[in-house]
């Protein structure tokens, strides 16, 4: 190890502390020797300890010492530096006899304290107790002669003089402690001892002429010439600074968007409030379906009941026919009567597929093949809890092409999920009113080693495509839940956390790297 290199890393604080360590071994001594603040010395010692210049032992695990000091109760004896029993003894040496009442009054003693004194005087055979109407103390021969202080009295005097005394076998008194006159306090004392490395370093010369921060002035005056820069401890932890960043949901949206753009898809945008016509009727959802009910779907409230939206006349006619009889699609339809008023109800979109329906209504044959996607919030009238959100993102898309088929749907999904980090995709039979065949999308979770459901897919029914497009054409479609991907990536258990916007969480969260 290059000693000089180590010395070079010393901070100005360390440079001041290190030289005194030859003879100063406690914090107090070091502070005294350097004239530095405690916090400065501590920081210097911490760094020196990190560099293994001082022994970790005495610094990190300081030796604890017990000190004895006076309690608040004992303060009134502090001035005379003696215990009340001495005063009683002296009184009795003078008067030979005294009643408890007189002594208590004379010395202003409490009952408890007086009884303790009585006990010790009697134990030492300094007094007799005479029992009359009042307790009377009479001094003995031994008492009359006693002039030397007891061990406790010596200790007390010492504490009074010095403020506190280190506890030793000699300097301790259970009796005074019980009487509540003294208390014991532990004090940690760091003993700073140089390591062999420190010893070696102490023989080296420490220059105070190293440069710390490079300043513009130094550059101007060229003061840096022929001087050394202090070496930094580059491994030291640094406090974090906060950067600006996108919300992790938006980061994920950007990544996902990139994938669909790379696959040649066009991004679409749409309303979040729509008529039931586009959200349900155009997608061949029967009018008696439960999605129309208040408990599942958000409807917009108006001055008189639900606000009504506009629906396009031409398409409405075709949708009516397809619902009632199947129209010209070759379908049997749902039967019953299709009610246009019901289709005018305004709701918060229940799925992003409505945008696909709207898109189909504007497509012409020459636009094909057509591939589009959208990432948007959809809504469910649900109470908010750890596994339910009332609004969440769906990633949906369609491909409109005369040749497109179910295997192509699987092909696109496989490409997408491969880029999202899920190498295997499976579809399983399912049911959606507007697709046939219908499928649920599963991906194989590479860590959990199990199949996880991530969305729904299928081919739009002819009852959906023919009235909207005006011609027969297969359309493949899918909808993927974004939150499912997010909870997995960020290991989030409670869905509410995604939109909690806890600033610490947002500041600390890793980037969405897919």
């Amino acid at each position, binding site marked *: 190890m290059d000693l000089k290199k180590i010395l070079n890393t010393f901070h100005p604080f360390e440079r001041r502390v290190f030289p005194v360590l030859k003879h100063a071994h406690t914090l107090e001594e070091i502070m005294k020797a350097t004239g530095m603040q405690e916090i400065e010395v501590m920081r210097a010692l911490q760094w020196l300890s990190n560099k293994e210049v001082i022994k970790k032992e005495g610094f990190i695990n300081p030796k604890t010492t017990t000190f004895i000091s006076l309690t608040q109760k004992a303060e009134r004896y502090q001035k005379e530096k003696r215990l009340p029993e001495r005063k009683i003894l002296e009184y009795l040496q003078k008067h030979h006899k005294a009643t408890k009442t007189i002594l208590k009054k004379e010395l202003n003693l409490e009952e408890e304290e007086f009884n303790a004194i009585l006990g010790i005087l009697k134990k030492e055979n300094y007094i007799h107790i005479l029992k009359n109407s009042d307790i009377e103390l009479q001094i003995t021969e031994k008492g009359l002669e006693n002039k030397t202080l007891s061990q406790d009295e010596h200790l007390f005097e010492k504490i009074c003089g010095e403020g506190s005394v280190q506890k030793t076998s000699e300097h301790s008194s259970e009796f005074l402690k019980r009487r509540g006159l003294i208390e014991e306090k532990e004090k940690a004392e760091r003993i700073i001892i140089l390591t062999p490395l420190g010893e070696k370093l102490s023989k080296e010369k420490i220059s105070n002429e190293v440069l710390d921060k490079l300043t513009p002035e130094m550059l101007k005056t060229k003061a840096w010439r022929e001087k050394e820069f202090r070496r930094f401890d580059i491994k030291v932890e640094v406090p974090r600074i906060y950067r600006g960043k996108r919300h992790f949901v938006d980061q994920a949206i950007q990544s996902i968007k990139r994938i669909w753009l790379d696959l040649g898809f066009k991004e679409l945008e749409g309303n979040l409030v729509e008529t039931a016509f586009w959200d349900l009727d155009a997608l061949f959802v029967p009018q008696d379906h439960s999605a129309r009910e208040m408990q599942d779907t958000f409807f*917009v409230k108006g001055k008189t009941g639900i606000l009504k939206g506009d629906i396009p006349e031409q398409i409405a006619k075709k949708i009516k026919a397809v619902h009632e009889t199947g129209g010209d699609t070759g379908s049997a339809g749902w039967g019953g009567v299709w009610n246009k008023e019901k289709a005018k109800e305004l709701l918060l979109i229940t799925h992003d597929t409505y945008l696909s329906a709207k898109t189909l209504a504007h497509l012409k044959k020459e636009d094909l093949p057509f591939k589009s996607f959208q990432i948007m919030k959809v*809504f469910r009238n649900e109470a908010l809890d750890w596994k339910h959100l009332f609004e969440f993102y769906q990633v949906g898309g369609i491909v409109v092409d005369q040749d497109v088929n*179910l295997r192509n749907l699987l092909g696109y999904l496989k490409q997408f999920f491969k880029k999202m980090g899920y190498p295997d995709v499976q579809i399983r039979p*399912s049911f959606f009113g507007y697709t046939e065949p219908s499928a649920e999308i599963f991906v194989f979770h590479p860590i959990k080693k199990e199949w996880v459901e991530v969305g729904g897919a299928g081919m739009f029914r002819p009852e959906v495509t023919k009235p909207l497009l005006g011609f027969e054409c297969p359309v493949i479609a899918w909808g993927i839940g974004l939150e499912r991907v997010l909870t997995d990536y960020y290991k989030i258990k409670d869905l509410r956390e995604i939109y909690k916007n806890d600033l610490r969480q947002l500041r600390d969260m890793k980037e969405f790297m897919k």
Partner: protein
Amino acid sequence: MAAIIIQKKSFLDHLKKALADSEITAIIQKLGVSVEQITHTELTLEVLPNRPDLLSEAGLVRALQAFLGIKKGLRKYAVRKSGGKVFIDPSVKDVRPYTACALVKKLNFGNEKIKEIMQLQEKLHATFGRNRNKVAIGMYPLDKIKLPITYTAKAPQEIRFRPLEANREMSATEILEEHPAGKAYAYLLQEAKKYPVFIDANKNILSLPPIINSHETGRVTEKTTEVFIECSGHQSGAVKTCLNLIVTTLAEMGGEIYSMELNDGKKKETTPDLTPVKRKLNIKYLNQRIGASFKEKEIKFLLEKMGHDYNAGNVFISAYRTDMLHEIDLAEDIAIAYGYENLKPELPNAATVGEESPFEVFRNKLCNLLVGFRLLELNTYHLTSEEVVNEKMNHNGEIIELANVANQEFNVLRSWMLPGVMQILGENTRYEYPQRVFCSGIVFKKDEQEETRIKEQTKLAVALAGKGEDFTKIKQILAGMMDALAVIWSIKETEHPSFIEGRVGAVLVDGNEIGFVGEIHPRVLDNFKIEMPMAALELNLSELFKTLK
């Protein structure tokens, strides 16, 4: 989705196979039925709404027997003539116009079988029957009633009988007001002046559909061996299919089906009609949709796995399948029979060009630009409350309310972005300042010009909270954005109740106000329990984008 429970032992006995739990799951899943739980004795399954014929053990076994090749193709059921008659009175036209009826005999109900059939009835009511509105099913022990039956509608006060689960005779009005089933389904008869009833030849009321059966004449027990079944509802087709489904399921359980003659005064009809539905099949069409090249022989094999018959270009579909609206539905059956898991993914090579929405390109650039100013992006809900958007902001804007919302804290569509941001900062006061954040998103306002009467635009809110955050700081951000976009803009003095007077300005671009910027009023900060000064701006990005074009 409907959850059903079936008995594992009898299920496996019927399949004549000893299957491990994992094998049961795998096989059932292939039909689109998901397995929720398997115990020693029971299977809990989720059945998709398009396959109500799988809502019973007998139905599921029937489908699996075909699927596994144990009993392939169309299942044929004999329908014997009973000679029993049902008169349909024209009075039902206005309340519940259709019915289809049958008898089933030689039943041998054990306790489990009764449960199974009750479960099927209940699940059919909830799913295919649309909570009994579209179709409701009634079943009556034949030994308690006398044919012929009359289906008619009567004034509520004329209807009196003892309903199931009641200990006394009640009037129809009492049933709807007091009986549990009556209360639950009263809304289905809400607008009816007369209520539908089935009455037998003894003039006994059998039931008040779709509410409840009579205790005396409409209670099926383990001892019942012969039943009269009716389905009633609002769609003739649905009522008949539902009857077909019930009687064939009973036949699978060992029953014999007998038809009844329906007469509505104009025409006579015999139900059930179990004649298979014949549909022409275009193999080329099916292969195109699936992306397969199945030959006719393979198609025939796959259709038979799904319980259909195929002969010379025609498919014969069971009369109980409710989900066969179109030829495409056969494509799904063929794909399921082939196995979705056997389909090979294929990416078409038709070239298309990816295209990001120009507005989203703009919005994203702007957001990334704000990140450059070390701002943190938030993502907030579109739903909020009037308290947040108006009251706490000391504001009085127009609101758009939602009907019948599950969470009262989220019953309003947001009209601007800043309140949501303030709310978030109010919840984060324990964290380090400065807190410099932004949030962009769709906001809503009433507009008669729009198809939905609501205009949706994207707005941006930026908020700086902390010691020393003031008008200068927020205007620096604004200026930085506008410079980056090379937009000519200006600020005009304005008043806004959420901001400190004299420290708020309207942002003008091309003479249009597209937002405002200022220092938040301490009264507003206080409402959100924020104890740091705050400066903020709100910009209409949709409008700003227009001026860029």
